[in-house]
C-alpha cells in the first residue's frame, strides 16, 4: 500500500469510529431512516381520500340519488352530509368540515329528462385548492359515467387507451421510495462531511492533522469516504424496505446504482467540504448545510415536478446534485434504465463534485495562510 493510502485508511477508520462509537449518534443515523421509510411513503400521496362531501339537493330525484350513491363508493369521499341551505353549506366549508358542496338545482331531474341536463354545481374549498381540484375531477368522472336513460343514441366508446408505465396504478409510494433513497442520504452525508471538518477546527485537532503528513486533499478524501459508507448503508435500508415492505420490484442494475452513488456522494462531499471550509464553528457548518439542503430538496422534483418551474429556476436546479440523483434512482429502480440514458446526470454529478471540491480545497488552503 502506498503511504497516501495507508494514511487515508487511518483517517477513514477514525472517522467511522467517531461517528459510530456514540450510541446516540448511531441511533440518529438509523432511527430517522426507519421512521421516514415507514411514514413518508404512506403519507405522501396526491390522491384525495376520506373526505366529507356536503350535498344540497333541492331536487331529490333518482339521478342525484344515483350520483351520490356512486360518489360514496369512491375512496375520495368517506362521508356525505346533507345540508338544507347554502348558508349551512358554506358554514361546513368554512370550518373545513367538508371539502366540497354539490348542489342539485330544483329543475335537475326535469332537465335530465329533457335531454339537456343542467350542470351540477360544486362549491369547493379553495384553501386546499390542489386537493379540491382533484376531488372535482373525481366528481366529474363519476358524472361522466352516469348512464342517462333518455339518450337518443348509444354512447360511443372512447378509442383512447391510457397506460401508465413503470407504475400502472399511479401509486405515489412508488415515486416516494426511490426519491427517499436520495433524500435521506443527502442530509446525513452532508452533515457528516460539513460538520466533521468544523468539529476538528473547533476542537483543535485540525492543527494536529495539518502537522502530520496528511495533505489537505487526503484529509478531504478521508472525510468523503465515511459519508459514502453511511449513505450506502442508509440507502440499502431504504432499498430493502422498498423491495420487501412496499413490494416495488427493483428493475435495473443494483451494482450500477451503488456506482452512481459514489458520484452522488462525491458531489455531496464536495458541497459539504465547501460549506465547512467557510465555517468556523459546527453551528455555522450546520446552518450552512441546512441552507443548502432545504432549497435542494425543494427544487429536486421531489415536492413538485421540475417541469413546472420557470425556465430560469430549471437552469439553476441543474446545479442541484439531488435532482440528478433522484432521476438516476428512479430510472434504475422503476424503469430499468440502461446507463446511456442517465449518463448525462452522472456526468453532471461528477462536474459538481469536481468544482465544489476544487473550490473547497482552494478556500481551505487560503484560510491556512
Amino acid at each position, binding site marked *: 500500500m502506498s503511504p497516501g493510502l495507508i494514511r487515508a485508511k487511518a483517517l477513514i477508520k477514525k472517522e467511522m469510529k467517531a461517528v459510530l462509537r*456514540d450510541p*446516540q*449518534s448511531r441511533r*440518529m443515523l438509523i432511527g430517522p431512516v426507519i421512521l421516514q421509510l415507514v*411514514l413518508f411513503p*404512506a*403519507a405522501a*400521496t*396526491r390522491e384525495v*381520500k376520506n373526505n366529507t362531501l356536503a350535498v344540497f339537493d333541492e331536487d331529490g330525484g333518482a339521478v342525484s340519488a344515483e*350520483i351520490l350513491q356512486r360518489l360514496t363508493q369512491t375512496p375520495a369521499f368517506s362521508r356525505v352530509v346533507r345540508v338544507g341551505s347554502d348558508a349551512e353549506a*358554506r358554514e361546513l*366549508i*368554512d*370550518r373545513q368540515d367538508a371539502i366540497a358542496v354539490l348542489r342539485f338545482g330544483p329543475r335537475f331531474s326535469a332537465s*335530465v329528462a329533457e*335531454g339537456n*341536463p343542467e*350542470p351540477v354545481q*360544486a362549491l369547493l374549498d379553495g*384553501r386546499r*385548492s390542489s386537493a379540491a381540484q382533484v376531488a372535482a*375531477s373525481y366528481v*366529474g368522472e363519476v358524472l*361522466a359515467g352516469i348512464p342517462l336513460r333518455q339518450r337518443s343514441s348509444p354512447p*360511443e*366508446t*372512447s378509442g383512447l*387507451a*391510457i*397506460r*401508465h*408505465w*413503470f*407504475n*400502472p396504478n*399511479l*401509486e*405515489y409510494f412508488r415515486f416516494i421510495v426511490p426519491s427517499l433513497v436520495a433524500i435521506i442520504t443527502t*442530509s*446525513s452525508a452532508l*452533515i457528516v462531511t460539513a*460538520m466533521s471538518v468544523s468539529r476538528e477546527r473547533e476542537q483543535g485537532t485540525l492543527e494536529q492533522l495539518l502537522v502530520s503528513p496528511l495533505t489537505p486533499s487526503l484529509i478531504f478524501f478521508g472525510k468523503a469516504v465515511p459519508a459514502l459508507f453511511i449513505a450506502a448503508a442508509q440507502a440499502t435500508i431504504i432499498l430493502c424496505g422498498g423491495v420487501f415492505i412496499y413490494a416495488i420490484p427493483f428493475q435495473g442494475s443494483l451494482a450500477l446504482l451503488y456506482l452512481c452513488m459514489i458520484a452522488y456522494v462525491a458531489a455531496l462531499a464536495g458541497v459539504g467540504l465547501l460549506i465547512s471550509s467557510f*465555517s468556523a464553528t*459546527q453551528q455555522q457548518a*450546520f446552518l450552512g448545510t*441546512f*441552507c443548502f*439542503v*432545504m432549497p435542494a*430538496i425543494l*427544487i429536486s422534483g421531489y415536492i*413538485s*415536478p421540475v*417541469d413546472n*418551474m420557470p425556465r430560469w*429556476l430549471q437552469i439553476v436546479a441543474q446545479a442541484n446534485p439531488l435532482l440528478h440523483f433522484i432521476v438516476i434512482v*428512479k430510472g434504475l429502480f422503476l*424503469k430499468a434504465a440502461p446507463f446511456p*440514458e442517465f449518463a448525462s446526470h452522472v456526468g453532471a454529478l461528477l462536474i459538481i463534485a469536481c468544482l465544489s471540491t476544487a473550490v473547497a480545497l482552494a478556500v481551505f488552503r487560503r484560510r491556512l495562510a
Partner: protein
Amino acid sequence: MMPQRLRRIVTLCRKESVQIIRDPSTLLIALVFPAVLMFIFAYGINFDAGAVRLGIVLEDESPAARRFAETYAQSPYFHVTFGHDEHAMADLLRAEQVRGFIVVRGDFARRLERPGDTPTVQLVTDGAEPNTASFVAGYVRGAYAIWRREEAIASGRVMPAGLTLEERYWFNPSTVSRNFLLPGSVTIIMTVIGALLTSMVVAREWERGTMEALLAAGVTRLELLLFKLVPYFCLGMLSFSLCVGLTVGVFDVPFRGSYLTLYLVASTFLLSALGLGLLISTATRNQFNAAQAALNAAFLPAMMLSGFVFEIASMPAPVRAFTRIIPARYFVTAMQTLFQAGDVWSVLGRSLAGLAFAAAFFLGMTFLITRRRLE
C-alpha cells in the same frame, strides 16, 4: 424580589441578543434565508402543471391522423415531439425527455372511416412521476374529447349531452396554488428558524464552560429557559413579519384575517418550535447529534406531514394519528384559513389549542430535563 429577578432575566436576554447580533450566520438564517425560501416556494413549487412534454408517434401519415396530431400540437397544454418509432419514443420517456406519448397506429385513418368503428389511440405516461402522469392523462383525455366533438361536428353527427360539473372555488376562485402554498411555506420556514437556531444554543453553553459560571452565579432553571427563549422568539417574530410582508406585499397573496389573530397564532406556534429546538439542545450533548435531530424532528415532518404538501385526510389512519403531534400541522391549517378565509374561529380555535398544547409540552419537557447541577 420580583424586580430583581426580572432584571436578571433582562440581562441574560440582552447578553444572548448581543451574541445573536455578533454571529452573522444567525442573522443570515433568520433574515436572508427566509426570503430566499419564499422565492423558491413562490416559483419553484407548483402543483399546477403547465405545458407538458408529449411525444406523438405517427405510424399513419394520412391527413386524418395529422389532423388528430394537430389538436395536440396546437394546444397550449402540450409541447409536442413527433416521432415515428415507438421504441425511440419509449427511450425518451424513460429518460424523462417526454412525460408521455401517444401512439397513432397505421390503421388510424382506415378505422376512422369505417362506420361504427373507433381507431384506438394509445397514451403511455411516465408513472414514475405519478402527479405529472395524471395531469398528462387528464390533458390528453380533454384534448381527445375536443377532437371527438370536432370530428362529430365535421361529420354531421350529434354528440349526446352528458352530465357536467360547474366548479366554483370558495376563497381562492382562480385556484392559484401560490395562494395556499405561500402561507403554508411560512410554516416550514418558522419551524426551521425556531428549531434550528435554538437546537445548539444550550449544548454550546455546556461545551464552552459558560454554563458552569452561569450556574455558579445562581441562574435558575426558569431563567435559563427564558433567556434562551425570549431573544430567539423576537428574532423568529421578526422573520415571520418578513415572510408575511413578502407574501402579501410582493407575491400579492390576499390576506383576509386580522393581523392580531395572525400574530397570536404565529407566536403560539413559534413557542412550540423554539420549545422543540431547546428540547433537542438540552437532550443532546453533542452538536452533531443536535443537528441530525433538528433536521429529522423539525424540518422533514413539517414538510411531509403537516398537510402543507400532502393531504392529511388522504393518509392512512395511523399516519393521520401521528400528524396530530406535529405542531406544524395546526399552523398550516391556521395560516391557510387566515389568509384565504379570514378569522374562522371554529378552525382557528382548534389549531390554537393544538399549538398551545405543543408549546406547553415542549417547553415543559425542556424545563423538566434542564439540569441545575453538574451531574
